[in-house]
């Protein structure tokens, strides 16, 4: 549900950069959205098209990178891939892993002209 306001935040960053870096059109926006960021990627895509209308990023393509979520397993002393916050270690079955990545929610780069 908050994907719409995230898109407004994205537009604000784009508008600021358009002013700072003197571009008038955005052709591509590349985001990094981790599986633990609490964001529904399809809702973000929908909101993106709606929010970018009438801006420098109207018609911009949206590329979303989804990095793998990982967590540190104390028992195995290694980083393991996880799908959800409460997943046990895929190697030893231990619970209460320390999440090390997967919460990313950022604009990585843009193609502008």
């Amino acid at each position, binding site marked *: 549900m908050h994907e719409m306001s995230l898109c407004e935040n994205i537009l604000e*960053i784009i508008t600021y*950069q358009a002013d700072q870096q003197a571009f008038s059109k955005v052709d591509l926006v590349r985001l990094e959205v981790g599986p633990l960021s609490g964001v529904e990627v399809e809702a973000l895509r929908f909101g993106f098209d709606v929010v970018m209308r009438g801006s420098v990023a109207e018609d911009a393509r949206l590329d979303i990178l989804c990095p793998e979520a990982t967590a540190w397993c104390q028992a195995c002393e290694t980083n393991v891939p996880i799908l959800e916050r409460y997943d046990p270690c895929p190697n030893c079955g231990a619970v209460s892993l320390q999440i090390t990545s997967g919460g990313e*929610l950022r604009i990585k780069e*843009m193609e502008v002209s």
Partner: protein
Amino acid sequence: MCTVCGCGSGNVRVEGPEKAKPKYGGELHHHAHDHSQEHGSAHLHHYGTGRASASAPGISQSRMIQIEQDILSKNNSYANTNRRYFAERAIFALNLVSSPGSGKTTLLVETLKRLSETRHCYVIEGDQQTSKDADRIRATGVAAIQINTGKGCHLDGHMVGHAVEHLAPCDGGLIFIENVGNLVCPAAFDLGEAHKVVILSVTEGEDKSIKYPDMFAAADLMLLNKSDLLPHLDFDVEAAKENALRVNPDITILTVSACTGEGFDHWLTWIEAARTMKLAGHPVLSTAQ
């Protein structure tokens, strides 16, 4: 225009203690707290100079710019401004989150009845519409501000900054922020609070914490509310606790009833202890309060 909360574009309203006072409208922008933003400096890459490394006038050439900026960075900077404000004034703020109907407002009313004699308390109420909740709080004699988020599904750092400014809390005060009833979105938005407190009522499912893990992972305390109804329900308290601990091994869990007062001693003790920890070393702790 503030695109974070939309003020200037119409949906969000901050309604002050004086009920007749109109929506703040333009006044919203005369806030004192620092809103300067750090839009991380982007690194520019030119990919469009062509094969001969020459630009041709009139021909548009695209380039890639590296941004590497957190989408929530603006909210986070507002939240940090709030956090600094709270720290300087020894204000202890809690962000109460839950699904709609968990009994947040009743719990808060009962908490304030017990706490407001010894502490200066303030409440920020977030709802999509109406000032009903703030009215219920004001009936206890505690100052409350209602934020109507309009179409928004959560409070953000900017709205709370405005509300705090209007509340003008005294040093050493306690602020309770009752977020919009929603177990999804408020998890992502830092407001500058010391702790998120998630309220789960026993009329909901035991598995709510694993269905909505982000919120339970973000909270430091879970209040299992409406415990007075347990004899009438088929609700497994131990399973609910186990699920919450699976998502967040560090979460503290207290069972309470806003109706009978069960567990309120523990809840009030937790508030005092967490406040003392948060304000450790601040001069306000060694004075009267």
